[in-house]
């Protein structure tokens, strides 16, 4: 077995039990013999050849070219730059160099830079394709690397200014990259929670996380006019969307407006505006469908919590009916304009990201569902309003053809003026998907409202009695 690769074996043995060749070094007027196993590198400097030892450098008696011939017998010694040869048997780590190339760390912590162009024999010796990435690599790991997550031992919250600058500044060392710092902060916190520590923001919201990291930004002088709360929020949303962490792990509270249906949870009645949530509640009482009012662009935390609850309910339905989970259908009430459609696409995409299988989307706010006079009188010109970027408008026109080929939009509120018509639309479009046909037996919101009313009446009567 050993005879297959004697060079590798000799090098490995040299590292392990310090067998190796003796190299003559100049020590003043004397000559000192040091084993190659104790030498980290050889470098050429000002016409001299130096051996780099753990704690010092010493000039060799023989020139580097002669020493290299000896080292070849052991294998594992490769040049990493002009006049610099290191012992790869003592390599423990390779990482990206802040400048160009790779930073190599040896067993004693000594670091050297491997310059581009010298990596080929090294890759062959280590039997790897890349010095930064092990193959196979998970998507999860790739995302972490892309976001600049670092292997930090110290808690970011307690790092000094210098430590923060050393860890998160750019290659030139001038400024701290705040987005990378915040991503690392979030990742570090979630690692502590996963290791068993309680969440420092349990029951709070994203603001709570911001208040936690704010002093760190203050320490490095980054609390300027830029709103880094938004950076934190977007980094958190991105990490949650990539499934690197979840809002639930932090114990954050979602104040989104949604409710999972008891009878037809797989049919989602979705409204863009929170003002329509009351109507959705009434529809849930009638159909037993799931309801959600996004209030503009849906928050990632809402999508995560909503999907988790919906998946749980669908699993329960699947067990109860002894059938596979039904197809999820979104009946949406969004504006008929590019932003309304983008919002719907984002929401459907989020649901898929958080684990819902294929989703069918039925938009109720289409020109065919408006009366001709409404289309004529209540439309607004998307080109003239100037809110929509031209490219976005062009794309939307290609998809929908606007209203009779004109770049006109319709607010969903126009449709909602006639609630009976919307109810009929929901029942017609949702009919093929309802497992329990409407009306469903228990009206949750109605009962809740009645109970509330009853309590209110009781309280009022009691107050009256006391007054008497």
């Amino acid at each position, binding site marked *: 077995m050993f005879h297959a690769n004697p060079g590798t074996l000799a090098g*490995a043995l040299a590292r392990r039990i310090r067998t190796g060749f003796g190299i003559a070094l100049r020590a003043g007027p004397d000559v000192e013999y040091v084993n190659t196993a104790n030498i980290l590198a050889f470098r050429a400097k000002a016409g001299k050849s130096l051996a780099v030892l753990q704690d010092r450098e010493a000039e060799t008696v023989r020139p580097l070219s002669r020493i290299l011939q000896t080292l070849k017998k052991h294998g594992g010694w490769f040049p990493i730059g002009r006049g610099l040869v290191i012992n790869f048997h003592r390599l423990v780590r390779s990482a990206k160099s802040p400048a160009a190339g790779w930073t190599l760390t040896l067993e004693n912590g000594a670091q050297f830079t491997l310059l581009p162009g010298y990596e080929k024999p090294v890759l062959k010796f280590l039997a790897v394709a890349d010095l930064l990435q092990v193959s196979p690599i998970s998507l999860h790991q790739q995302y972490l690397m892309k976001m600049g997550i670092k292997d930090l031992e110290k808690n970011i919250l307690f790092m000094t200014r210098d430590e923060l600058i050393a860890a998160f500044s750019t290659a030139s060392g001038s400024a701290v990259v705040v987005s990378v710092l915040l991503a690392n902060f979030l990742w570090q916190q979630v690692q502590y929670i996963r290791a068993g520590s309680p969440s420092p923001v349990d029951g709070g919201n994203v603001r709570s996380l911001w208040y936690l990291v704010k002093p760190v930004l203050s320490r490095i002088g980054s609390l300027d006019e830029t709103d880094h709360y938004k950076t934190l929020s977007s980094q958190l949303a991105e990490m949650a969307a990539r499934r690197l962490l979840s809002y639930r792990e932090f114990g954050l509270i979602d104040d989104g407006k949604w409710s999972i249906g008891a009878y037809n949870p797989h049919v989602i009645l979705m409204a863009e505006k929170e003002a329509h949530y009351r109507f959705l509640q009434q529809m849930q009482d009638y159909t037993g469908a799931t309801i959600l009012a996004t209030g503009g662009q849906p928050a990632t935390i809402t999508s995560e919590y909503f999907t988790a609850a919906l998946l749980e309910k669908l699993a329960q339905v699947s067990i109860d009916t002894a059938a596979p989970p039904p197809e999820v259908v979104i009946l949406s009430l969004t504006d008929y304009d590019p932003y309304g459609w983008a919002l719907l696409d984002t929401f459907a995409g989020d649901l898929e990201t958080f684990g819902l299988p294929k989703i069918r989307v039925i938009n109720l706010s289409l020109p065919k569902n408006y009366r001709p006079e409404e289309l004529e009188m209540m439309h607004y010109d998307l080109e003239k309003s100037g809110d929509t970027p031209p490219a976005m408008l062009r794309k939307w026109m290609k998809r929908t053809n606007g209203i009779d080929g004109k770049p006109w939009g319709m607010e969903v509120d126009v449709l909602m003026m006639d609630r009976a018509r919307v109810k009929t639309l929901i029942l017609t479009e949702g009919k093929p998907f309802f497992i329990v046909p409407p009306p469903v037996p228990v009206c949750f919101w109605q009962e809740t409202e009645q109970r509330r009313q009853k309590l209110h009446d009781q309280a009022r009567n009691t107050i009256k009695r006391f007054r008497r």
Partner: protein
Amino acid sequence: MQYIFFLGSWYDFFMKNTKKAVSPKSPSRKRAAPARIAPAKRPRGRPPKVRPEEPPAPPPAGDAQLLETLLLRLVSPLKSLPVQTNEAVFYIRPEDIAYLTTTEDRRILIVDRSGREWQRFDMLSALEKRLGPDPRFFRSHKSFLINVFAVKTLRKNPETNALEVTFGDQVKGAAAVSAGNLKQLRALLEL
């Protein structure tokens, strides 16, 4: 059929004649060739090359085996195993590994002899294949690949009553041993 028989008989004939010509000490036919054409008369032209001296006789098989076993205890003949972290790639010498196991999120957890833990996105069967040429690694359980030379105790877990091996005070946890693999493991541990 006849054709195959014909070829076969030719092959036998050829081999018999060749074997006679080749010296039994020669390891290959390439080296044996000069022995066959030993000159009977005085050579003409360039003098024949002086054959290099025969290599020294190898040590007795028992000693060589012992030496190899001792070397194996010191170092692995395999290359370092790279593992990924968020920022860098670490290289772990196979002889420094205590055991490898699978995690809940379908990764491989590598624990070294000093108790440090590493993760690798891979399959245990793939790593078993990679580390297979090194006899120190043994699949003790469907979820565990252990370094036999790092084993400190073989015991029954007092709580679960399941068989397991431990790797000393520095290494947290233990590696399970399935009943089917116990006999082989005992043989490897010379029990």
